């Protein structure tokens, strides 16, 4: 064996010389070109952000420079009535309030359900239960938002109305309302909370759990007092990212929340969110450079900044969490 091995090694070395050498220059040229090309694709994402900011900024500036608009009214005004002929008011707060209301209802639906689901999936569920629950969550995540809009308008709202009829003798919820839209958005963002939180809980090291069990903790103690606090920044990140989605959600609120912008925190009322206002303008063939049209860009700017801020906070929390455990 030994002599053969040595012979084979020298044969192999001799054989490697029989190939036709590929040019190093061609190779380096390719490498340089491909690296450049791929680098350019990576820069596209920067270009997209820059494009969004530029366009929104340009139109927003055009909006606030209009003679009938005052920046202070826009930022602090509490009346939003752009389509009412002579008495136009552009105070952003009613839209922000509507968005806030829908998002809070959504968060109140999604966060408790999502967190408990995450704890259950991560700490309690057996393999077979996981195999049932995981696809359910994935399907909920894959349902198009317009379907949730349909659900909110034609299932949740009637259900809420008949429940109130039964309990209080009056429907209370109007045909378009923030509550139903919020619940539907909540169902939509539930998978985000559940799966991101579960990921966070799963990456808590085993040793931490084992330590707690070794001290005689119950599963509840381990899940709630050890794993959840250890995964807290990941869990919080999931909530922030989910609320970001809720704020930006469009089709559900356009269908189910209504079109009346006013300051209310009553989920039974109809509200208009920022996104719903944009839909109203872009659907309604408003002139491309009219005041209403420009106002939708200003609203979009506020929406963009708000979601960007929340998403940055969420990602910072996520990074912090990953630094600790990965």
């Amino acid at each position: 064996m030994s002599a053969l091995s040595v012979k084979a090694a020298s044969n192999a070395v001799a054989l490697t010389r029989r190939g036709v050498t590929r040019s190093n220059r061609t190779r380096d040229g390719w490498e340089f070109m491909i690296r450049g090309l791929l680098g350019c694709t990576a820069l596209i994402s920067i270009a997209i952000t820059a494009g969004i900011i530029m366009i929104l900024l340009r139109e927003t500036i055009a909006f606030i420079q209009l003679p009938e608009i005052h920046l202070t009214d826009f930022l602090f005004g509490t009346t939003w009535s752009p389509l009412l002929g002579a008495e136009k008011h552009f105070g952003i707060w009613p839209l922000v309030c509507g968005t806030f209301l829908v998002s809070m209802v959504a968060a109140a639906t999604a966060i408790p359900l999502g967190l408990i689901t995450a704890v259950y999936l991560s700490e309690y569920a057996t393999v077979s239960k996981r195999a049932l629950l995981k696809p359910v969550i994935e399907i909920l995540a894959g349902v198009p938002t317009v379907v949730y809009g349909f659900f909110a308008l034609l299932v949740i709202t009637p259900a809420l109305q008949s429940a109130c009829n039964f309990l209080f003798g009056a429907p209370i919820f109007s045909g378009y309302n923030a509550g139903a839209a919020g619940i539907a958005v909540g169902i939509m963002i539930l998978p985000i909370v559940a799966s991101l939180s579960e990921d966070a809980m799963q990456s808590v090291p085993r040793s931490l759990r084992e330590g707690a069990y070794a001290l005689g903790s119950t599963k509840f103690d381990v899940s709630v007092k050890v794993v959840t606090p250890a995964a807290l920044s990941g869990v919080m990140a999931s909530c922030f990212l989910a609320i970001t989605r809720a704020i930006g959600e469009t089709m559900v609120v356009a269908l189910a929340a209504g079109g009346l912008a006013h300051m209310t925190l009553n989920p039974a009322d109809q509200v208009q969110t920022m996104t719903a206002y944009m839909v109203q303008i872009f659907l309604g063939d408003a002139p491309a450079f009219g005041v209403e049209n420009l106002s939708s860009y200003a609203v979009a700017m506020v929406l963009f900044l708000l979601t960007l801020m929340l998403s940055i906070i969420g990602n910072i929390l996520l990074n912090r969490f990953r630094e600790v455990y990965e």
Partner: protein
Amino acid sequence: MSALSMRTRRIVKNRAFLALCLLSTSVTILILALLIMSIMLQGSHFLFNSEAINAVFAHGELSQLTKVIRWEFLTNFASRFPQKAGIYAAVIGSIWVCAICALLALPLGIGTAIYLEEFAPKNRLTALIDFNIRNLAGVPSIVYGILGLTAFTRMFGFFGSDKNSALSFGPEDAWWHIQLPFGQGLLAGGLTLMLVVLPIVIISSREALRAVPASLRQASLAIGATPWQTASFITLPAAIPSILTGAILAMSRAMGEAAPLLVLGIPVFIANTPDNLTDNFTVLPFQIFNWAGRPQESFHQLAASAIVVLLVVLICFNGVAVYLRHKLRRPMA
């Protein structure tokens, strides 16, 4: 408090929490069941032919089996009359736009992911790109619609108005006939959806590439492969099943998006399918939005029927993703 009662309390707490878990998971499952059932109930009217169903199931006339589904719902154009309305234009438009979106978003997204995972130096620019992509994923899709409206539909006004195009290429009847600006055409729609799904494709592809063991990369580099040779011959083939899974999920997102296309101003009613890349189109989710927003009950039923079709398509997409995940996943090391 005695030690025993302490212990009992803790055990009760544990049980109660488990009960809460089971309750909340059953609520989740119940919601999904309710969602599907309510849509099936409302959607069945225009999807199925009640006479044919009766004939097949009550009288065993199997010859009527093909008539169980109301095919005219799939092959008719939208109409003011619910009985005549169909989703043909919307289905064809959705397929076209998603295909364009996939052709643009996948190469760009996977390319970016390869660059960031395999080539990018660890510097500030890379960190900025990374941070930017994560936050782009959180930007509402309607905001991408505004970018699409300005950049693709109107092209910043460089080529005149979008209603009245200034430039065009190719013969009028060729599928690759293009006019500038893109207006409310397929290219504008596909490009806008590309903006929406690009961050998703990038993030999922990066995760797929990151899951390839570093030892494979080192083995390849150590025998003198260049970074690109390593990426294209070793890393990418190992990661491709997960990349495809992510890509399919991103495409189902594109298939379900209505908001950004709504901003472009795509038409509600359209009585022809697109002939070329900048021809007008509509998509299924937008059609659903329109029908669901009308006051008449029949249109709600139409919307539900269209939702069933959309969900069936998406379930097929997801089925393919699950299949790829399980069948193509080979051990990597």
